[in-house]
């Protein structure tokens, strides 16, 4: 451990950030501490840092996303990196070929970091096997979204001072949510208690195998919760008969004042965005500055991505002048 203090590189023992699963509490804490550092810096500094100067970061998004991509882009720019955004038209190219062909093409350009989002679970892992640079998972299918869980954790820790011992209720479409999975892994590792709430079509009983408590009733699930984490309901779930209608979903699983009253009086509300107001969350609750940390989550998003880029590139050889 003494050696670890002398050499920052051994604090984080992974080449890539593909998921939260498998990270230790120490590694997560390192990322959260660095995020705190960048959060403070972002509030005062306006000139880019030099940590990633000479590095190239490519944002490769196979799924449309404005906020996550922008957040990664800003994070890289604020660390002094050169950033290229690539949005890959998913429909125009045969799916399977796109990923590995693109990976090989990009690899040949020698980027330092590849941030990738893909609609299929496991796709970012597959990509990481084909490239030599650092790969950061910007969300893969219904699998993981590690930077989202990290930014949620920073937000919680700044408001509550800790993660250990908190009761966190994750509500909504847990089954299809990469945000939920990454959060469950992170919160468990950091000693929080996790509940998941939603209808059995979206929160299957087998979720208990994740070590979470499963509730199908909002009032009971929210009882005495410290944190209420709402998930976005993809509107296409209506077609698959996962839920019969928006009206019915909002009535039983949408977060409003009445349901929120079951949680602790100072319970904090989180949402990964973008919100479906009137579907999973009522505007009155979402916009309550005292309760909702939704804007702060966005702010922390940039800080967390700076922390990830910094920590991951520590292990790369120094960039050289050409």
């Amino acid at each position: 451990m003494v050696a670890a203090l002398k050499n920052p590189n051994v604090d984080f023992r992974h080449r890539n950030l593909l998921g939260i699963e498998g990270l230790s509490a120490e590694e997560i804490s390192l990322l959260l501490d660095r995020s705190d550092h960048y959060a403070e810096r972002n509030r005062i500094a306006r000139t880019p840092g030099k940590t990633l100067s000479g590095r190239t970061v490519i944002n490769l998004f196979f799924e449309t996303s404005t906020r996550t991509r922008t957040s990664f882009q800003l994070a890289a720019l604020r660390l002094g990196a050169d950033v290229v955004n690539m949005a890959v038209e998913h429909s125009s190219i045969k799916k399977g070929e796109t990923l590995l062909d693109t990976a090989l093409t990009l690899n040949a350009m020698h980027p330092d970091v590849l941030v990738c989002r893909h609609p299929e679970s496991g796709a970012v892992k597959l990509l990481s096997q084909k490239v030599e640079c650092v790969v950061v998972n910007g969300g893969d299918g219904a699998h993981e979204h590690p930077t989202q869980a990290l930014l949620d954790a920073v937000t919680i820790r700044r408001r509550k001072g800790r993660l250990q011992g908190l009761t966190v209720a994750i509500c909504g479409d847990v089954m299809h949510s990469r945000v939920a999975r990454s959060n469950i892994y992170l919160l468990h590792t950091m000693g929080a208690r996790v509940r998941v709430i939603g209808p059995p079509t979206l929160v299957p009983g087998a979720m208990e195998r994740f070590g979470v408590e499963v509730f199908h009733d909002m009032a009971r699930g929210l009882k005495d919760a410290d944190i209420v984490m709402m998930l976005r309901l993809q509107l296409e779930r209506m077609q698959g008969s996962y839920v019969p209608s928006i009206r019915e979903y909002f009535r039983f699983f949408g977060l409003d004042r009445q349901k929120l009253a079951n949680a602790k009086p100072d319970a904090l509300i989180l949402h990964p965005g973008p919100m479906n107001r009137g579907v999973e969350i009522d505007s009155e609750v979402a916009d309550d500055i005292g309760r909702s940390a939704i804007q702060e989550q966005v702010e922390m998003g940039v800080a967390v991505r700076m922390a990830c880029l910094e920590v991951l590139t520590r292990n790369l050889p120094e960039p050289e002048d050409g």
Partner: protein
Amino acid sequence: MAGTGKHHGGKHHGGKHHGGERNGTVAYVNARLIDPASGMDEPGALVTCDGTIADLGPRLFSDAPPPSVEVVDCRGLILAPGLVDMRTQLREPGEEHKETIGTASAAASAGGISTMICLPNTDPVIDDVAGVEFVARRAREVKATKVFCYAAATVGLAGRELTEMGLLAETGALAFTDGTRAIADSRVMQRALNYARTFGLLIVQHPEDPALAENGVMNSGEMALRLGLRGIPRVAEVMTIERDLRLVEATGGRYHAAHLSTREAVEAIRRAKARELPVTCDTAPPYFTLNETAIGDYRTFARLSPPLRTEEDRDAIVEGLADGTIDAIASDHAPHDQDSKRVPFAQAEDGIVGLETLLPLSLALVHKDRLGMADLIGKLTCGPAGILGLGEGRLRKGAPADLALIDPDKPWRIDPDAFLSKSKNAPWENMPVQGLAMRTVVEGRVLHDRMT
């Protein structure tokens, strides 16, 4: 080996694969003769002449074989009927970049298989007489292992209109199936069973409720949830089987459930057999060798249909084989090229190549004392042959000389890159196994030989 015959080794490829020349007379001495159909399992000798078994038994050549014949000293190895693989996908016609009848035949004979029965899910679909004739002609042309085919149960595998079952059977189709698709519509299934009964023909079902399985890529449960992959619930299999059993009871048609993967399905067939319904079933090595954890980190080579299930299911499949509920083991050979597998898991094709690993993976059941040797060989020979009404899979005087000479203990490691199959999609890389086909003979022709 004294020789009239010119023997082929295992390292040639199917397109150029012409098979061994027909021997005059060959005597296999010092063999352990196993013929599950007759219950024979004893030391002895066997002699083939002009493509048929001329004689066999424990006392044959007890002094010495006649001097003029070719003699193969089996060194105590097992001489059994050539294996009969009742479920393969050969990809010809239509997807010859994945496999051809020639390459499949080379792979099959390297695995001790002398007879393959292929699914009709080719392009075009084998749903008319010309398709059945094409397969037979191609098999003759490449002097392959014996190749029979199933014909589609419904036109274009679309699950609506029945095919010309009578005419197809006359041309050589052994039974009827929609291949890797379930015959989902209850009325179509009822008519298929009922109509096939006219000719005493068998309907083979891919037992999986398509609505429950829709877009699913692996077994439902904790593992699918962790990986964020859409699951196929275990109940999808037994539901279809139980519905079909009701229809079998109502129609009296003959029914075979392919590649069982769940405990409940085994139990359903076990109950049906206890009630003496005309029902049989098979499974494939992945289902008694692996469970869903083989998928690990999105390993597409472990994606197959039906999906790998839980350890409890795997155990139930072994139990079903041991107690006779499961009649046969098929390779479920499903060749795919790299482009079909090196993609995100949800986009990958289903299936594993199986011809060259059917025997060693099955022999593991014997090595682990779950099945007796003769019992296991029965599931690979007379079991499937009997279901399909074939005379193959037996050692009998006057029968075709289809033989597998098997070293049941020989240790080796599976190397998919060395497969003779055109496709290498298999999750067995580097897996240690025991048992190897040392020689494969089809109607007296030596198609594969590791004895020299």
